[in-house]
């Protein structure tokens, strides 16, 4: 499996970043996940963090080196993440249940599956054109589909941030699944929160990411979105991944998983442990765990 991947999350002009992003891969499977905690509700950040962390952890446990059934996996982990949020709210006696959007994409055997709830989006860009896109679970999107709104008025509609499906909250989420989509060399999968797709139009996103140079393009898009977002700029998160043929020549930024052991994984998660308190908080358990992990790695590679 060979791909190039880049993720970034920025706080924008908000006080906190309630977006969470992560990707994780084993030798044969790759997971991208993004959650946008809902600001209007209590602890949106918590919901997003629980979801991303839970989904990434499940992936690490089950992908050895790939999951048995991608669709079942996505369905199970998303619904379990939902219940994890409910449990958290129950444990902490929260007045309101935290909510978050979710979009997760799993690639294995060269086939991409994705699932989402809410208005965080996935785009599949092939040969410079938009090949697939998730449909937002929002009132505005429904009105668009029914012809009650056109794209222009939808962009400024007061209720454009209202969504009818999410993880957490009092209603069970309506999760939408994609069909399995075989990836070809050069395909770009991008997932982003509304802080990115809101200010930018789809064409810009597609055109910019079309060349697959995600290392440069992601920061570039983030800059543009941030500039357009102005003083009200929302949290912005974007993960973009370019898929490569296995027999292509190595380029410096590309991740090749060929030489990975079957039970190893690599995870990149942002938004955790950023503040000073988290860093100082290294518990006894964590020390023991770190030592165990290091020794396991030493013996594995011996």
């Amino acid at each position: 499996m060979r791909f190039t991947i880049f993720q970034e999350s920025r706080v924008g002009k908000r006080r906190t970043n309630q977006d969470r992003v992560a990707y994780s891969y084993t030798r044969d499977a790759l997971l991208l996940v993004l959650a946008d905690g809902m600001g209007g509700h209590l602890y949106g950040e918590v919901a997003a963090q629980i979801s991303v962390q839970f989904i990434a952890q499940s992936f690490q446990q089950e992908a050895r080196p790939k999951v048995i059934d991608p669709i079942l996996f996505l369905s199970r982990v998303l619904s379990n993440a939902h219940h994890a949020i409910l449990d958290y709210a129950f444990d902490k006696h929260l007045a309101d249940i935290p909510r978050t959007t979710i979009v997760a994409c799993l690639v294995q055997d060269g086939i991409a599956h994705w699932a989402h709830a809410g208005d965080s989006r996935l785009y599949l860009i092939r040969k410079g054109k938009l090949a697939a896109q998730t449909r937002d679970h929002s009132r505005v999107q429904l009105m668009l589909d029914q012809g009650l709104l056109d794209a222009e008025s939808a962009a400024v509609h007061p209720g454009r941030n209202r969504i009818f499906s999410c993880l957490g909250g009092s209603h069970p989420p309506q999760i939408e699944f994609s069909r399995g989509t075989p990836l070809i060399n050069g395909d770009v999968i991008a997932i982003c929160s509304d802080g990115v797709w809101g200010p930018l139009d789809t064409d810009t996103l597609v055109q910019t990411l079309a060349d697959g140079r995600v290392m440069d393009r992601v920061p570039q898009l983030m800059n543009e979105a941030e500039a357009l977002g102005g003083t009200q700029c929302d949290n912005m998160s974007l993960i973009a991944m370019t898929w490569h043929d296995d027999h292509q020549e190595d380029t410096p930024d590309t991740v090749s998983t060929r030489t990975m052991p079957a039970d190893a994984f690599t995870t990149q998660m942002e938004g955790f442990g950023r503040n000073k308190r988290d860093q100082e908080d290294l518990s006894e358990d964590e020390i023991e765990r770190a030592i165990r992990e290091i020794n396991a790695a030493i013996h594995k590679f011996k």
Partner: protein
Amino acid sequence: MATQQNCALPSGFQLDHYRVERQLSLGGFSIVYLAYDQDGTPVAIKEYLPNSLALRAEGEVTPHVTEAHQGAFRYGMKCFFEEGRALAKLVHPNVVRVLNFFRANGTVYMVMQFERGRTLHDYAQKNKGNVRERFIRGVFTRMLNGLREVHAHKLLHLDIKPSNIYLRADGTPVLLDFGAARQTLMSDTPILKPMYTPGFASPEQFTNRDALGPWSDIYSVGASMYACLAGNSPQRSDDRLNNDTVQPATKLWAGQYSHHFLATIDWCLQLDPLKRPQSCFALQKVLAQRHREAPPPQKTWLEGLGSRLKTMIGRT
């Protein structure tokens, strides 16, 4: 924070399964011991012991960490784990091998393979002004094999210097001391200042840590090659940004070394990261190239032979 000298564990001390022989080196962040395991195999053990945060007085075993420093001490431990994690994954003949990791005496220890030989720094000091181009090219080409492996794991070494390059008895280099290595993508705000050696660190290590990349290690590789010729490191790169007094190698040693080789050193020492070789491989390719211009004969045949003999003796 006041800096103080920490006392090393005494010789003969039984540390986990190892018996401490003597202290090998003392840094601001750690102490390295030579020790023997149960089978009598020599190992190097690195003890996490930051000078500024933990104090071990004479005759004590467990270092004393004040309440106020607990947080930072634990955070530094995280960095130490990072180094362990980094090295545990790396199995390469040109990178020092980690054998074990354990906890004792209120701190943590990393056991590494003990390498016999000496540092490139010692070698260069001993053969001051007499280090041959072929030798440098050979050592660095092989050392870069190890560094490539490091970069392939998405790590940066960030403290490459002649005293961190060890030459085994057979002349093969080993890259040591990953104390400064960090996962490049970590979004930490460090409490403990990263450790590095001023003359060998790239300018982005001082100013713009977001711009760190393989090219930052390449700068240090260039500075190390420069130091092999000069006997000391070039001017600190942060000072160079204000007032660059570094003479290009092509000027300083013209005639003594091939122009191609000297130009390669200058290329690595560019202040602009983009103007340097961008990867170890790019630099290796150049270093491994047989230089077209042979250095003009400097010495008479007999002198040349003498110095060669000296190097050969010096190497064993």
